[in-house]
């Protein structure tokens, strides 16, 4: 078995093993292969010295380069922050109106605002900012508290009916369940429905007209056009936050819903609020 055996056809020595008369030639490995193998060994040694390699009990050897994936991501994030630092500084220094006037800054702030919107706002307003019942659609041109960019920034910064912020926007639609008779409520509801062209009972609406002037016009205005000073919605337009029918209006008069929006300035900072305002303004409904 162990003596040297030369294969008679190829002249190559065999490995010395024999299986049922079959022997394996002991050809050398190709030189390029052997060299590649040696190089990988050298490479591995260098790697073990340079990079984290040997697992220890709670950690691993650090390697002389002191490289780690965490440091790397930290550096990359720092580099990304540094890359946009000039823009961020400009946004911080300028007013929202100035940001709007500067094309580059506006583009940057809109993109940054879109990113924060997706993290902080979509839970109520939806990923397309289309809102839902009780949560305003930010794409349209109907604004409860004003659609100028400064109004939008104010709303985002301090919220609506958000008790913890002293500068928050406050108003309260009272319940008329105790003040008006059920029939009167139904009449006012019919009148309100008639303002925006919802299906309604014309006779009742006529009856509700004077009741509206007495009870509602102080906030919603004589013509029902609303009042942004106190967030009183325009009742004549095609957009309503809570109501889609005469019955909905009746319920809103009896047991009104008053939505709450948190104040964001304390949590996100002034710059992020400006960016969010620019983004919301860009959605198509922003006012001059």
């Amino acid at each position: 078995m162990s003596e040297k055996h030369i294969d008679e056809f190829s002249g190559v020595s065999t490995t010395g093993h024999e299986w049922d008369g079959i022997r394996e030639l002991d050809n050398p490995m190709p030189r390029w292969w052997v060299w590649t193998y040696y190089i990988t060994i050298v490479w591995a040694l260098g790697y073990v010295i340079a990079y984290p390699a040997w697992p220890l009990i709670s950690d691993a050897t650090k390697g002389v380069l002191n490289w780690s994936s965490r440091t790397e991501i930290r550096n990359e994030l720092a580099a990304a922050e540094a890359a946009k630092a000039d823009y961020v500084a400009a946004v911080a220094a300028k007013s929202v109106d100035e940001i709007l006037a500067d094309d580059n800054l506006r583009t940057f702030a809109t993109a940054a605002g879109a990113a924060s919107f997706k993290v902080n706002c979509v839970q109520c307003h939806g990923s397309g900012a289309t809102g839902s019942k009780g949560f305003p659609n930010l794409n349209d041109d109907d604004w409860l508290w004003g659609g100028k960019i400064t109004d939008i920034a104010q709303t985002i910064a301090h919220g609506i009916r958000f008790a913890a912020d002293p500068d928050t926007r406050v108003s309260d639609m009272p319940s008329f369940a105790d003040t008006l008779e059920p029939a009167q409520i139904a009449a006012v509801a019919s009148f309100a429905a008639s303002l925006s062209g919802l299906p309604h009972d014309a006779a009742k609406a006529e009856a509700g007209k004077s009741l509206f002037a007495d009870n509602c016009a102080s906030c919603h205005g004589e013509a029902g056009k609303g009042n942004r000073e106190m967030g009183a919605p325009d009742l004549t337009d095609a957009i309503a936050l809570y109501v889609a029918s005469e019955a909905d209006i009746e319920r809103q008069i009896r047991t009104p819903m008053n939505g709450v929006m948190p104040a964001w300035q304390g949590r996100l900072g002034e710059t992020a609020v400006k960016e969010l305002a620019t983004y919301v303004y860009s959605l198509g409904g922003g006012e001059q």
Partner: protein
Amino acid sequence: MLDTQEVERLDVSAVNSARNRQPLYAKRKKIFPKKAEGQFRRFKWLVMLVTLGIYYLTPWIRWDRGPYAPDQAVLVDLANRRFYFFFIEIWPQEFYFVAGLLVMAGFGLFLVTSSVGRAWCGYTCPQTVWVDLFLTVEGFIEGDRNARIKLDQAPWSAGKIGRRTIKHAVWLVIAVLTGGAWIFYFADAPTLLGNFLTGQAAPIAYITVAVLTATTYVFGGLMREQVCTYMCPWPRIQAAMLDEHSLTVTYNDWRGEPRSRHAKKAQAMGQPVGDCVDCNACVAVCPMGIDIRDGQQLECITCALCIDACDSVMTKVGKERGLISYATLADYNHNMALATDPGTGAIDPTRVHGPDGKLKDGFAHYHLRKILRPRTLLYFGAWSLVGLLLLYGLLTRDRLQVNVLHDRNPQYVTLSDGSIRNGFTVKLLNMIPEPRTILVELDGLDGAGMTLVGREEPEARSFAVEVEPDRLKTLKIYVRQPAEKVSGTAQSFRFVVQDKSSFESDTYTATFEAPEKSR
């Protein structure tokens, strides 16, 4: 007739011939190809001059495209995603033109290979051209075959070191120039040359030159024929495209055999004698290290230098040229059948040559007319068809395009007056290097108007937009339709873009979405 003894017999063995094939792990045996002279060698000089000329000079050709585009005739502008080729400018989405050219190259290869064999390998392949160039340099510095063998076998001396150093230095200069020329296709050549020499070019330029220098030097100078035999897939693919009517470099053994070094003596003894004087000239000039007399071989790149070598010997001994010639397998079989004695099954030289030494009637080295046959015509047809389609595409392509993307979220917005608004991202592509004023219009959608975000203009059904030369302009457009005009949840309408000065236009059919009940 001259005596065959006057022809020097070269001491050479075809190291890569199948008979001499070495075990798998053996060291490569060097080849010292002798310089050939003749019509094919002259043709190869010409091809080398033309191909190297095209390669080195093309980036320096200027082509005026006006002030808004580079003036380099051939430029692959990766940074700006543009490809310029004389009067043609290609945007990335028009890459199908390049794909079409590759299809043409494929059919072209089929056509050439099935008609004239491995002509690509033998004449125009960069590996062949550069190896030829490197061999020429080697011959110039170290001398022809015998001198090179002597130098190779000589012990190391100052002279040998000197010659070898000069040779490798010249090779490296060629390699650097080869790698250097490549980068000029990707940037403005004069600017890049200046930057490159002053160390201000981009790192990728230096890396590219370094890599191509290394590959040129190693493939052209050191590995040579091994690249063709071991690394290149073409020989295998091309072999599959050859048929019995494809021209290949052929040793016509029907007139060459039995070969004899002492023809007169053998003739006097009454033995049959063929035309081959077994001088090995064909083997000595072969850059692939094979013996063409063994028949068709994978290694043969059909450079035809053996034809030159043999022809000059045949002329010298006063025999008809073409003992080695371009011939088809069909020609060869035809001639072989005529030359073979049906009784013995052996080649009979008396059947081939008349008493005057000329070939008898019926024998011919090749028939060129066979190049035109269904297969080659079919390839030519396919090749032409692709070419014509590309030409048609090129002449009729749009240089003004519009792409429209409907907002997905929200698909529509109800405004306070009940009207419906849809948002669109409209991309205008001005694909010529001139600034243009493009008119964007709404077509259809009763009563609707549009506003352009970022422009304080009243709602309108059309507006003009300035688009920069050779650029894409993205517009955000809001289209609004009054509530009473809305008919259905999905109305079809068109964005029409026009250049009033050139009458070019493009349209995009979009959909206007609305809620089921609009107020």
